[in-house]
């Protein structure tokens, strides 16, 4: 009888040990198959760049505005095509926008999501596309790995821009 009590007591202790372990602030280990990619605020603010056209790789959302056609490159940016002749659309420009998934246009201004920011670009002159406005931290960060096995704690100095598979 006494033995059973001792055993019970010991097993209770073991359970408590489990509790104690969690009380200590151990760094959370990333068990997922993905690791986070970060940018500083300064890097994010300077991350948009207009480049020569490039081929589609992973086309995402699409948008039409007048004779222009916009094709999102998933997580990378926006392709702009001249679609005045849909039999032969001309690839005009690529706008590099890290984290970009969505696009919309009003009055020759293009709205894009740039990770946590909403950015407005003046596209009235295709040869001279420029950022005219940035609304910071208006969209949520994707703090959890795609496989769901790890979530990064929020860090005001670093913006989580995406996840890449571990090597």
């Amino acid at each position, binding site marked *: 009888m006494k033995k059973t009590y001792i055993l019970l007591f010991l097993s209770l202790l073991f359970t408590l040990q489990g509790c104690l372990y969690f009380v200590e602030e151990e760094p959370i280990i990333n068990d997922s198959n993905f690791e986070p990619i970060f940018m500083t605020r300064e890097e994010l603010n300077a991350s948009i760049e207009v480049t020569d056209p490039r081929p589609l790789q992973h086309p995402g*959302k*699409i*948008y039409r505005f*007048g004779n222009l056609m916009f094709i999102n490159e998933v997580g990378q940016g926006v392709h702009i095509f001249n679609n005045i002749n849909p*039999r032969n659309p001309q690839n005009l420009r690529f706008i590099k926008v890290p984290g970009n998934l*969505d696009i919309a246009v*009003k009055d*020759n*201004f293009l709205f894009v999501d740039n990770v946590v920011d909403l950015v407005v670009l003046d596209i009235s002159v*295709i040869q001279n596309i420029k950022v005219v406005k940035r609304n910071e931290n208006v969209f949520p960060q994707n703090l959890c790995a795609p496989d769901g096995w790890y979530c990064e704690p929020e860090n005001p100095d670093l913006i989580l821009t995406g996840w890449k598979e571990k090597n």
Partner: protein
Amino acid sequence: MKASKYILISILIIFTACEDSNELASVAPGVTGVGGSLARFAVSGDRLYTVDNQSLNVFDVTNPAETEKVTTAQIGFGIETIFPKGDKLFIGAQAGMFIYDIADPDNPQYISEYQHVVSCDPVVVEGKYAYVTLRSGNNCQRFTNVLQVVDIEDLSNPFLVAEYQMHNPHGLGIDQGVLFLCDGDDGLKVFDASDPLDISNNQVAHFDDIHAYDVIPFNGQLMLVGNDGLAQYLYDQEINLDSLSFIAAQP
């Protein structure tokens, strides 16, 4: 006097020249574009509405260069798509479709919610019907793959009027009763939806080699996007599809 006339004319000519140089994008103010059914951004009037997982954001874009966020409304969970129609927003979520009134653009008002099983689901609207696709997928592991037609004549009381079995429906689009549905591996299906209660018997075309996930039908021109690239077609009310061009993706 004569000289000033010439100056005026030459100034006018200079302005025309300016206009020509950026003819591509030059449009009248207040003009917005058209997105696909998977869009999470939508411009309506002088506001940009965006949805993220749980909320609806409103941005004042009266002067786009001075865009400011006005408000955020918490809507629910698993918000996926937004479809503007007049002064209403139709919001596709994993658990259903929300209808919001934006007559007061800065204060979206909840009107109603149409609930269905948890799934991935964009929504498009034409006339008094909303067309919703439900599919099983990565984030929504349910075994439902259907097209639902929802009567929205009374916006406060949307109800299901018809449901059609599909393969794995993704994006969809409708233009004057012609319904285009991207049905995963099963390709693009085109329906005559003039009778929303009898759509599956009115499949007018099936292109099993077009594996698109979203579509924009607009003024007789169809844009389709899929993993392999972007395709454009001409269509008419008799639903003949003529290939215009294809931009191949190079992964």
